């Protein structure tokens, strides 16, 4: 029996119906077939809703589903691939489903459960839980949970999510970046390639188009919105970017070894000794960012003295002097 009044089906029904229909077809469905047969569109077609509006709805639905990771394939005219009038759409099962030959052992699942719990609240936490659900729905037994450990990754920087999306899409971003010692932020234009947590700080690694070189930026120094531009870059630049970024930070730390004298038994001695290597007089400690490290050293007050390099020494002294000045001490 035909539908009478145009029922406004909830959009999620239409979206899921569309996935089911596109997965059930081998050769693909044309837009016309979809709009007149898939539930959610069909009722509205029959109720006389304009084809324009339905087509727009279909385009939006396709984008939303792709956003969920549903691989909607467009099979165009072989002679003229840009002509989409007769295009057919389908969702190849092999692209959609977790591959058949991927199985997880109970021990692996226990480890994934621990790994999925590291994100404190926020979108990464929701993503991890959703990923775990998909894996758990494969119906695998799980070992006893790994107890005794609660590993956590904090993520406070609002720029993270935008940068991650830009990396996925290989899109150039711009952002205002405030370098310490500079009065105002400068806008950077960057091909973002990887996000790295190093020494408990989040960085974005990428190719800085302004200086035409690889650069690593601290997310905490991005002082405004990250803007994703329409300009894209070659996705192959992302290959191995995380490893390159990490190697770059480690090499930098090795090049920058501060010589410090530390009072034994103090907080400074305890905290620095794990990173330190012995020197004839004092200890040598690698660092990546002179500002960040100077801040840490200044926090130790009289517990540590910087011998060299001079730039680090000057930064520490200036922090101590400024603290004294600000709190009413003698000049």
């Amino acid at each position, binding site marked *: 029996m035909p539908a009478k009044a145009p029922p406004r089906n909830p959009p999620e029904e239409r979206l899921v119906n569309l996935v089911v*229909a596109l997965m059930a077809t081998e050769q693909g469905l044309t837009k016309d077939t979809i709009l007149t047969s898939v539930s959610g569109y069909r009722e509205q077609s029959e109720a006389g809703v304009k084809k324009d509006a339905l087509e727009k709805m279909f385009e939006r639905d396709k984008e939303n589903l792709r956003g969920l990771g549903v691989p909607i394939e467009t099979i165009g005219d072989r002679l003229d691939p840009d002509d989409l009038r007769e295009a057919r759409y389908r969702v190849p099962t092999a692209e959609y489903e977790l591959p058949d030959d991927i199985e997880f052992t109970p021990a692996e699942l226990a480890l994934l459960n621990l790994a999925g719990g590291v994100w404190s609240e926020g979108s990464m936490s929701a993503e991890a839980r959703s990923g775990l659900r998909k894996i*758990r729905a494969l119906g695998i037994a799980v070992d006893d949970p790994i107890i005794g450990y609660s590993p956590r990754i904090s993520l406070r920087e609002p720029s993270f999510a935008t940068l991650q999306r830009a990396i996925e899409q290989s899109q150039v971003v711009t952002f205002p970046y405030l370098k310490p010692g500079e009065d105002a932020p400068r806008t950077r234009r960057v091909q973002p390639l990887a996000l790295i947590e190093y020494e408990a700080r989040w960085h974005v690694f990428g190719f800085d188009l302004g200086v035409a070189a690889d650069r690593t930026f601290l997310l905490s120094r991005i002082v405004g919105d990250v803007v994703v531009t329409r300009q894209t870059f070659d996705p192959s630049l992302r290959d191995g970017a995380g490893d390159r970024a990490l190697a770059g930070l480690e090499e930098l730390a090795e090049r920058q070894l501060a010589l410090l004298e530390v009072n034994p038994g103090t907080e400074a001695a305890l905290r620095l000794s794990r990173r330190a290597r012995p020197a004839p007089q004092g200890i040598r400690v690698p660092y990546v960012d002179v500002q960040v490290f100077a801040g840490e050293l200044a926090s130790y007050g009289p517990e540590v003295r910087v011998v060299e390099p001079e730039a680090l020494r000057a930064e520490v002294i200036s922090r101590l002097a400024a603290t004294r000045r600000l709190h009413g001490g003698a000049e």
Partner: protein
Amino acid sequence: MTDRRPFIATDRAAIMLQLVPYLISKGEVSLAEAAAEFDVTDDQMRQMVEKLTVIGLPGDAGFWQMPNELFDINWDLLDEQGIIVITNWVGLERSPKLTAREAAALLAGLQLARTIPGVGDTEIFTGLLGKLSRGSSAVPADVIVASEPVDEVRSAVAEALRRRVAVSFTYKAPDAAPTTRTVDPVKVQIANGQWYLQGWCHLRLAMRTFHLDRVSDMRLTDIATSHGGEPVPDWFEDGDDVVVRVRFPESVAPLLGEYLERAGIETAGGVSTATMRVADEVSLRRLATRHGGVLEIIEPEGARLAATEWAEAGLAQYR
């Protein structure tokens, strides 16, 4: 779950795509269990399950689908006992691939998890990395979590947790004399790259949290753990007695990070004032010199004085 982001149609569609394989693998499952698995309320779960039954293969124009072309559930069980059983399905049997972002979130978590001594070996990790990358619908953005090598203290704690014995060590808290502690280890918290041991302290007769960088001379005892069941403390709850106020330019707030998490912040004219509770007013001198010249302690006066003296003592070394 009460406190979550807006629950939009796309979210519901994403859940329904995951719901079918979940229900098939479960056989039968209570509404409450399914709701908990998907972080939704019982009512939201019931609505989604009910909606499933109007979803199916496309029908011919002008006709409704045949019943076997639609998803179906056991209505009696749902209505009478709140139990979900899926009785017919027309696709979606297997879980969808992970999205790039889901894979990235798990991959980053694995990098941190693998730093824990005795949890999984290299083979398991390598295997998982491969499976997650093959099981992902797009190449995830590289999200790298760098970790430091595990030292003797961390290995010893792991061993003690496994053997369920107490550890004994010297603990040197900042601005306090060292003490010798015997502790039943309960949990290791890893946060911001720092490791904290939480456990029952035989000296204080209470649960305590210890920063592992401040621990030395750790050894395992043969005292069996007796307080494993105590609730772990809420971080450093050992008396946050002092109310302090600090002032800083609004623009540097992101640099202050974790310190502001528990603070009340007011901002006017580009200047922020944060009010927070700390255990010890002297401890703030370290925060003040870390952000020298940018962060000012407003009160209490004792903390201002301590910061001045701390800075002065530091400067004296360079004369």
